[in-house]
């Protein structure tokens, strides 16, 4: 795989494809931090509130890392930050690329209580860990290095989900465990759909092959989904939950930084 570092001339088409995915990651990390901040209202105890606040700061920090690299490629990233801060409930899709799942109108449907907040980090975050993990080995080295940093922290978010779920059960007992078990499938649909459509067959993603050939994406959706299931099963079993069977991915509400089903449109 040919790699590129800061200052290298990027081939035709490569720069646009790279910036498309970087913009999805950066804008969505920030919007994700905003959505997590909205969930502060559900925090039932002091340690929960402080740990969630910590997560907000981390997610926004990830956005700054990626925007900083995009700026080196000539993108006006300050305008993206301003758009998200000034229109956090409904940022203009012509100005920022926020994944469907982190748009307020979609996100707010999933959260009714603190148990949902705990489950999101337990059930959906493993998908982010697997998905973003692939960028650590991508062909654009500055982005790969930043994602090594980010990946370590996403693992910390997984630990938050397990901790928060155990605390829910510690305070609420077996009744709470049963309540949470019933809510796992709605988040698992999101986790399974995180990677976008399969890399082959009729439902195949339109752009995946191109991203893969350039080394911008380094793993196939099927590989990522297998990594996700391995992480998910270990976390659910650590808490004492069962892994639900027969759950179908929700691609329409996908959380992934894919964008591969759209024509590539570079962030400028």
């Amino acid at each position: 795989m040919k790699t590129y570092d800061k200052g290298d001339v990027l081939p035709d088409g490569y720069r646009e494809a790279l910036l498309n995915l970087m913009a999805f990651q950066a804008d969505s990390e920030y919007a994700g931090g905003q959505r997590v901040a909205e969930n502060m209202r559900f925090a039932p105890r002091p340690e929960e509130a402080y740990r969630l606040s910590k997560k907000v700061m981390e997610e926004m920090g990830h956005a700054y890392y990626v925007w900083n690299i995009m700026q080196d490629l000539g993108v006006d990233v300050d305008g993206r930050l301003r758009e998200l801060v000034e229109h956090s409930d409904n940022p203009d899709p012509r100005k920022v690329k926020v994944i469907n799942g982190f748009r307020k109108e979609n996100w707010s449907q999933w959260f009714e209580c603190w148990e949902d907040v705990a489950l999101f980090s337990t059930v959906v975050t493993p998908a982010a860990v697997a998905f973003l993990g692939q960028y650590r080995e991508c062909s654009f080295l500055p982005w790969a290095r930043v994602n090594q940093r980010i990946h370590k922290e996403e693992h910390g978010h997984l630990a938050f989900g397990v901790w928060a779920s155990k605390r829910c059960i510690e305070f609420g007992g077996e009744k709470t465990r049963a309540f949470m078990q019933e809510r796992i499938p709605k988040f698992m649909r999101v986790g399974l759909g995180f990677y976008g459509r399969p890399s082959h067959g009729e439902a195949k993603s339109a752009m995946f092959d191109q991203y893969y050939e350039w080394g911008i994406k380094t793993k196939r959706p099927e590989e990522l989904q297998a990594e996700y299931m391995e992480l998910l099963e270990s976390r659910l079993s650590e808490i004492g939950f069962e892994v639900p069977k027969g759950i179908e991915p929700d691609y329409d509400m996908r959380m992934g930084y894919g964008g591969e089903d759209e024509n590539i449109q570079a962030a400028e």
Partner: protein
Amino acid sequence: MGSFGNDLFERGREVLGRYGYRPRAGELDFAGVWSTLAGDFPMAVPEWARLTPLQRRAAEEYLQIRVDADRRLEVCETMHAKLLQAGIDDGLVEAYAQAREAYEDTVEAFGRARGRLEQALRTG
């Protein structure tokens, strides 16, 4: 402290306010804030005046670390405002990374102090 140019942070700090957060708080009123933090423990918590010396020391450490976290959160939010106003660059991004790592370490320490205090509340 102002709004940091971001309403979401205001709302987040209102939530932390339920547990004793005060903007740029000066003197620590441990006895006053104690009752707001009792919900952090899965058992009945004695009133401040009834804590044993061991429990009192653990409680003071727990409360002091929470106040330290509050101050570090304010540094993070100030950095967010600078990034918004001055624009994203290497220096500010790294300064923010350091600020949030300091906040994150303090929140982790707060969790560990809560665990020690819970142990002291169990043993008396």
